[in-house]
């Protein structure tokens, strides 16, 4: 029933192919990680190691839903991950990977 709180934007974030901005430094910590964006100087605490794993797995090729599944995140937890990744996108730490850019995995 908490899904009622999700907006259209958050429903589609599961379909988005997100990637970490190259200007972001991700520094693992015992509690999770620190993410620092050198461009906009924002500092974000990733407060759980699972969020860090998910962010590290984002490759721009798979959707968030696919990434969450690949990282063994139980679907009951997906709403909070959607909120977290949306917040990271709003802070410009993550952005949608353009379909037109055919990135060769390497």
């Amino acid at each position, binding site marked *: 029933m908490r899904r009622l709180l999700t907006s259209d934007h958050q429903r589609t974030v599961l379909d988005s192919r997100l990637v970490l901005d190259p200007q972001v430094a991700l*520094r693992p*910590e015992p*509690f999770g990680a620190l993410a620092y964006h*050198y461009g906009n100087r924002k500092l974000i605490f990733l407060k759980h190691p699972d969020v860090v794993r998910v962010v590290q797995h984002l490759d721009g090729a798979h959707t968030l839903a696919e990434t969450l599944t690949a990282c063994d995140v139980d679907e009951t937890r997906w709403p909070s991950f959607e909120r977290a990744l949306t917040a990271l996108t709003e802070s410009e730490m993550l952005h949608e990977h353009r379909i037109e850019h055919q990135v060769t995995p390497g």
Partner: protein
Amino acid sequence: MSTASNTKSHLVEQLKEGLDAPICLTWELTYACNLECVHCLSSSGRRDPRELTTDEAKAVLDELHDLQVFYINIGGGEPMIRRDFFELLEYSIDRGIGVKFSTNGAFIDAAKAERLAAMNYLDIQISLDGTDAVTNDAVRGEGSYDTAIQAMNHLRDAGFGEFKISVVVTRHNVDQLDEFKALADSFGAQLRITRLRPSGRGAESWHELHPTQAQQRQIYDWLVAHGDNVLTGDSFFHLNALGEEPLPGLNMCGAGRVVCLIDPIGDVYACPFVIHDEFKAGSVRDEGGFAHVWKHSELFAELREPQSAGACASCGSYDACQGGCMAAKFFVGIPLDGPDPECVGGYGEAAMLEASADTTPRPMMDHSKPVRVAKPERVPVTIGRR
């Protein structure tokens, strides 16, 4: 939202145990300064001959890069006095360490402003303690207000973008907070207000300059009402006991846990407000450099242990105020597990009465310029120029 603060408290509890590397840190590049502000936390004025060399400074930057320190806050004294200032700035940025430097603006002319405007990953913080020359210059020296404003003009004209104006809040400027905000807005700059600590030369002037209890309430209320885009360096968390809504920030002492100070001669202290042997963790010139000090110093290990609430344990406000600032306590002679001298509950005042003048610590590094005795009338004797 109490649950939100529960989650943040969990994070804060982990941060209090210390991180493997600082998130950011203060680096005072020199004790030399063209000004002699009465409250200078580093008692600056004269260069220390033992200053780190350019190569030593670069080696520290290499270490900070390896530790993934995101950002350094450069100050002094007046950091732009160093001949290698720009060289170190550029070296740091090349190594992926963002820089914010704190300056009185005396060395920012039109040309320097252009040069700074062309640099990326750079913040500038201009110090100002009054919205008029009378208020400001009483603390920072004659002409310093004009100097600061001129530097701001140059930065604006060069298209630097958003710089910061940093204010130490005192008894005499607390009524100017609205004007400070307006001043910052007029330059497209960001206002930062910070707490006066009785550190450095501040030890001598603190009793006259620090805000009164009523003024502390004024600061808190102002931040709650107008502080949306105002930075505080998290220096007012001792005021959280005044209300339901904690001020933004981690609201914890970061000294030795997430931040620290590197001083001009390479000594590492818990923070810039405790330049004293009691809070010295080591030196970057020691075997193992900065990284070894951060990870293994005894002082930092102690600070990363759970701290005793001591005398404050029975106070209902302790969760909010965390017992305040250890620098403030130390330099007025209150034990570190005692109340903050500016405790909003008034417990600090009682504690200060108990502190003896004999046992109150004196600043250990004093790079102040020799005091010039003011001549009340002209005397036909030539006094040598400095």
